[in-house]
């Protein structure tokens, strides 16, 4: 009997869900955004320091 994709997923749901805990993807995304924004702010800080030193 041919199973549809949904049925296959349902049949292996317990296994799949235990294996693929996708919470890590959320942590990774949070870390990327945090590091990215921080990096940009540091660059702004450097720019400001340069201007301050010119005077």
């Amino acid at each position: 009997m041919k199973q549809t994709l949904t049925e296959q997923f349902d049949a292996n749901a317990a296994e799949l869900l235990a294996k693929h805990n996708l919470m890590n993807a959320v942590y990774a995304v949070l870390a990327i955004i945090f590091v990215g924004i921080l990096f940009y702010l540091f660059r702004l800080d450097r720019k400001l320091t340069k201007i301050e030193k010119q005077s």
Partner: protein
Amino acid sequence: MPQADGKRKKIKFSGDHGQLLADMDFTMGNAKVSNEYYSVFIELSNGKYLGLPDAIYLERAAGDTAGTTAYISKSSAHVNSDREIFEMSFPNRMVLNESVRNLFYHVPMWFAMLALLGMGCWYAIKYLRFGQLEDDLFADSLVRVGIVAGILGCVTGATWARVTWQSWWPAADPKLNGVAIGMTMYFAYLLLRSTLQDPFQRARITAVYSVFIFPIFIALIVIMPKLSPNSLHPGSGGTVGFNKYDLDSTMRLFFYPAVIGWIALYYWIANLRFRIAKLKENKLNA
């Protein structure tokens, strides 16, 4: 992950859409229980499973050193101790699973980028109309911070795609191709701006360029994916919109404030950058 004794229990279910009411027994048998989130798997009468990842938080009962009894706390599941009724509502999406939370981070990046690039376009028009160099500097800051948001949107999207679509960059998706072209246009903006020295000439040329590429960018990442026959992204090319995923509108309650918050954050950063650029301009003229 420690498991409960694995005994299968017959549970009576009631409740309506998105909510489950069940009679359950929570003795943990001989399994060692640590304080952690546990998934609930329910075997349905047709032999299939209904999986609810991290649905309940089990805590060891006070004074229990062996860790064999547990009770549920701090989760969307509630236990009515008088009647031993187990009640929970749990939004579970196939494939996305827990990563559905990225809706609050990945999607607002693009909203913020569009908002900032749009405002940048607006200030570019304002510069072309009134010729104030300040407007040009602010437009430039908005576009640059918008590009930062766009890059973060790309990277977070790739991370999310890796775990759900099994590829860092599924090139068949029209939205991704559109973004690749659109971002290149904005990188060209940065190049163009860096090559021009005279502030007024630089302002005029980049303002015209910015006004031209913004509508093209919108067409590439918003309109084209909607017209295309297939897309992996929700709301484009025959894929259902995200509102179909969010059955009880709980996510909406957090999504809209998240969008406003992210836009405000990027606007603030753009404003800081503008003030620094203005300071630099004043120093050069002094």
